[in-house]
């Protein structure tokens, strides 16, 4: 009996202690700052640490710099499945997401609405610098890694194959999380990789990757990731959605305004949001300067119809949903009239998070 009592006491004491320490260190329960933010109605928005979603942290950061606080809470995920599930469970009513994925969800009846684009271009197909692959035809029989079957990179490769007179059966496509792709290419476990930045640029920067082609050369103004929100959010809280889209649009213009802004973006995003080496984002945002673009992001029907067509051919879309079903382009109709944020970086900026 004594053993049992001693053990129960220790167990209970331990649970209480570890919970308190955890709450103190990690949950900021005792932070005075934590109390202040709970009365704002902050909604969550999901993103991945890729340049496709760059406007998300940029909007958050600039808002915090300008007004002291942001009006949403960015939540970083590590993979597409978790991001998608968080949206489905309602945890993130707004999220950045792959366009074909959003369209497929809509076809399945999920009340999702695309409201703005995330970026244009910003993707590539990389091969190992020592390989003999210089043209699309050289990829015959080779292994190519793509992030997800709903990714535009996959559709893009299908399109490039078609242009080169090949079929998808001529290559071996495998799905792989983007963070794992650089190492796979280095070890030559795959022959080519394709995903959003900065993982493509990483292979170049580290000296073992070579660009086979950039998306801007095969599919100009390629779109991949989009900003989507739950239909109910539009119904119940249109103002907030408008605010969100406006913010994202202004961030996009801000990033593209000049190279100095891009470098600044690389600095604070890699440090406070993506936890990556700043060199990497700097490289990807500048070499070449139009590797990825953040303007011209209003929704346009032809872009999506192209994706619908390719998606049907690739077998991931059924064609049940159309542009009007899965988008709501009313928030920003003319993006040429969007002004960038009027904020310039200054010396004191330690309010990152």
């Amino acid at each position, binding site marked *: 009996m004594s053993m049992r009592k001693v053990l129960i006491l220790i167990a209970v004491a331990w649970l209480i202690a*570890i919970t308190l320490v955890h709450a103190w*260190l990690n949950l900021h329960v005792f932070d005075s700052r934590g109390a202040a933010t709970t009365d704002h109605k902050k909604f969550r928005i999901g993103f991945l640490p890729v340049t496709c979603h760059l406007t998300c942290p940029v909007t958050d950061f600039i808002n915090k710099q300008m007004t002291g606080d942001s009006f949403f809470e960015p939540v970083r*995920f590590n993979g597409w*499945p978790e991001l998608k599930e968080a949206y489905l469970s309602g945890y993130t009513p707004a999220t950045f997401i792959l366009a074909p994925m959003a369209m497929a969800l809509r076809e399945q009846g999920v009340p999702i609405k695309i409201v703005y684009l995330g970026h244009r271009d910003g993707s590539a197909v990389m091969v190992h610098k020592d390989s003999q692959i210089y043209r699309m035809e050289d990829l015959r029989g080779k292994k190519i890694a793509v992030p997800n079957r709903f990714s535009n990179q996959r559709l893009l490769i299908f399109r490039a194959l078609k242009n080169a007179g090949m079929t998808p059966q001529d290559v071996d496509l495998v799905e792989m999380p983007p963070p794992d792709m*650089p190492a796979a290419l280095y070890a030559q476990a795959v022959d080519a990789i394709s995903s959003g930045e900065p993982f493509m640029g990483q292979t170049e920067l580290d000296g073992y990757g070579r660009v086979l082609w950039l998306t801007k050369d095969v599919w100009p103004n390629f779109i991949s990731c989009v900003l989507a929100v739950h239909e109910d959010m539009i119904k119940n809280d249109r103002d907030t959605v408008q605010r969100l889209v406006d913010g994202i649009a202004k961030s996009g213009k801000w990033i593209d305004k000049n190279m100095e802004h891009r470098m600044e973006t690389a600095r604070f995003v890699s440090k406070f949001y993506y936890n990556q*080496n700043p060199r990497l984002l700097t490289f990807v945002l500048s070499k070449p300067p139009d590797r990825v673009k953040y303007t011209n992001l209003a929704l346009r029907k032809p872009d999506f119809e192209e994706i619908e067509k390719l998606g049907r051919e690739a077998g991931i879309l059924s064609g049940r949903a159309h542009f009007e079903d899965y988008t709501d382009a009313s928030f920003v109709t003319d993006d040429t009239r969007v002004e960038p944020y009027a904020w310039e970086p200054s010396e004191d900026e330690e309010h990152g998070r």
Partner: protein
Amino acid sequence: MKSTAAEITDRQGLTSNGAAPQTGERARVGDADSLLWRIVRPVGMAALFLTLWGLAVRWSGSDLFPTPGNVARGIIELIQKGLLIKYIVASVFRVSWGFTLAVVLGVPLGLVLGWYSRAFQAFNPFIQILRPISPIAWIPVAILWFGVSDAAPIFLIFLASVFPITVATIAAVQNMQLVYLRAAQNFGLGTGELFRQVILRACLPQIITGIRIALGVAWLVVVAAEMIAVNSGLGYLIIDARNAGKRYDLVVAGMVMIGLIGLILDLLVRQLEKFDEVRWGYVGRRK
């Protein structure tokens, strides 16, 4: 018969069954089994391993795989950023709760299922079906039920631990020596008393073994469990380091910390085996 027989028996009675005499004679330095050697051996092994590791990385010329030096520096970097303690606490917190829930639910459940054969027939197929499903497969369910919070990894860790504990408890009850039950019933114990005083105690050594295994599994699953968008923990450190580009030194640093803490946890559970109430279950099996 005569007193000589009595003397012989009682002196023989002092012969214990395999428990080596403690302290005193055995603790001299230089003796192969002394405490000093018991520490030197594994440490020496570790040093050898680290050397081979470093050499292997250098010979292979790999750009990506970290050397022990890289990893050590990674650990120091984490300490300097104040992250190491935070991450360890977060992971230990989730494992503590997930594992405790598994014990609190699994042991009584195992006792009942082991004892009532009809209940066993009804529930066992269920358990055997759910058991081999990897916690990673449960991630979508965890997110849907618990959202993106600490509850989700705790749930996954609970799932991973509850099965070894329940199965070990069931086995212990089913293989219990009949003689204990008969003796207890002979003394007029009712069902409740029978469970608490006899069945649980007779099965405790095996249950503790099950708990040891389950704790290892729980700790193993922490990496998978922390894949769900939590922003702290050793598992999160590893996944985040992958996303951050070339930080494989942090990946391995996370692995090292997980391994070390796993070792400490195991040593702690082993201490449970020293209690008198269960020591009898391990006698004769190891020195």
